[in-house]
């Protein structure tokens, strides 16, 4: 497994001359391996969106470096690096450039000078992957938020990137839209082993990841599997996040004196434990 992306001791400040203000990102290091799904979580202002911008060269760190496929990201290899990453942003409307769905998916291909026949193939293949093939000539204002984000994903996939970055891609969507997008990403991973990095404050999304990076006040607060991270329990709530439903219920039940063993992330685990701890007589 190769390393797709890494941040190495990255420090960044929006106001470097102002020594009073704190750094937006402070000495952060992490690596994304091929095939992984990493989630970066944290409250608004924790530095997660700044990290997204550092990852694709919209910002350059004052200290440390960002490496794409083990090469340090610089202005010289910027465009080459960007073609290896696909990014989906938060606002479904403000990234939709094309007049129709297929035009928008083709945008990145046009920018990279891909020949016409190849473009047509890739556009159709990408839309097939996100299940939007029936919407080729639809205009954006006739699409729901979830549909627009799926088109954005198709647009990112058209360049056959090594990494898909979702920057709060589900925050502005209704529950159905969120479900559609997450389902799409999961299917993509199952079918193609796509590497995904998602920046989010949505628990459900974070729980789908292989590893979670928890940011707080610009620093990396914790890194680990979802189980390890959610074991931090109340600390998460203190730092502005929420706990999975099963975990919340589990704590409440234990407070009411119901005997249970350990923490539970999923409802199945909780139901099973309730049974074994209370009914297996």
């Amino acid at each position: 497994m190769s390393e797709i992306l890494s941040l190495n001791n990255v420090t960044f400040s929006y106001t470097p001359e102002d020594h009073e203000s704190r750094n937006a990102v402070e000495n952060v290091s992490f690596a994304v391996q091929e095939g992984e799904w990493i989630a970066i979580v944290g409250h608004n202002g924790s530095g997660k969106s700044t990290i997204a911008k550092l990852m694709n060269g919209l910002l350059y760190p004052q200290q440390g470096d960002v490496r794409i496929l083990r090469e340090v990201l610089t202005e010289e290899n910027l465009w080459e690096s960007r073609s290896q990453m696909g990014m989906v942003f938060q606002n479904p409307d403000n990234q939709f450039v094309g007049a129709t769905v297929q035009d928008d998916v083709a945008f990145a291909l046009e920018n990279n000078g891909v020949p016409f026949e190849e473009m047509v193939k890739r556009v159709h293949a990408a839309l097939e992957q996100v299940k939007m093939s029936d919407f080729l000539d639809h205009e954006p204002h006739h699409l729901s938020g979830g549909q627009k984000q799926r088109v954005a994903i198709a647009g990112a996939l058209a360049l056959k990137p090594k990494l898909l970055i979702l920057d709060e891609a589900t925050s502005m969507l209704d529950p159905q839209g969120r479900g559609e997008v997450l389902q799409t990403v999961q299917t993509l991973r199952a079918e193609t082993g796509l590497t995904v990095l998602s920046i989010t404050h949505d628990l459900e999304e974070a729980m789908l990841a292989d590893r979670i990076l928890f940011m707080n006040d610009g620093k990396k607060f914790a890194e680990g599997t979802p189980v390890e991270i959610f074991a931090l329990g109340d600390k998460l709530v203190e730092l502005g996040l929420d706990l999975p439903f099963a975990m919340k219920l589990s704590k409440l039940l234990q407070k009411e004196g119901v005997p249970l063993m350990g923490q539970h992330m999923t409802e199945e685990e909780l139901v099973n434990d309730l049974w074994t701890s209370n009914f297996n007589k």
Partner: protein
Amino acid sequence: MMEKMIFGRFLPGNSPVHRLDPRSKLLFVFAFIIIVFLANNTVTYAMLLAFTLLIVFVSRIRLYFLINGLKPVLFLMAFTFLLHIFMTREGALVLDWKYIKIYEEGIRQGIFISVRFLVLVFMTSILTLTTSPISITDGIEVLLNPLKALKVPVHELALMMSISLRFIPTLMDETDKIMKAQMARGSDLSSGPLTDRIKAVVPLLVPLFVSAFKRAEDLATAMEVRGYRGGEGRTRYRKLKWDMGDTFALVLLVAIAVLLFFYRT
């Protein structure tokens, strides 16, 4: 209110006119506007009218929409018609009542002018009704391409136009939302003294502008991340295809021009 506006008045369809390349339609209408002035007698005007109605028939556009297109110029049409009726004093006297004298030539000229208005409006309406705004932009871009040699930023202008077009429905929706939100806070654009109503435009325009700038910023970032760095080395996804139908349309135009030329006085 917003839902009553059909943007660009484009009505999707599959008629032969819909399927024409936008370039041929643009050239056709442009040339037609000039050819119209070749007509100067009953025969030629009748030919023009017949030709126009033929195109309307082939495009399968409902007359309702074309007549709607006439509404803005109806006043002008009626005005020039009446001007001719009462002012042109040639030909046989048709009506003599008190001090109103109407001559045959006045009626003829009045009708001719009205027909001219009608065919111009109908033909340009057919253009916008059968061609999506984005096709029109594409057509204009390709037709203006030669200007690149003169350092005119044709690609950038076309991209600006296509992005603006794409956002018009979105911005219209947003305007509606902001208007409703401010109305819900007691803002009143439709009643009260004029100065108040002008002031009531501020709570509508400021949020709209702020959001438009944010959109522009977000969009520029997204475009950059998706590899946009100007027109150099870009390929085109939306291709225009010129085929027999387009050549035929232009041939038809030349034919009508020739006919008009022969039959005019």
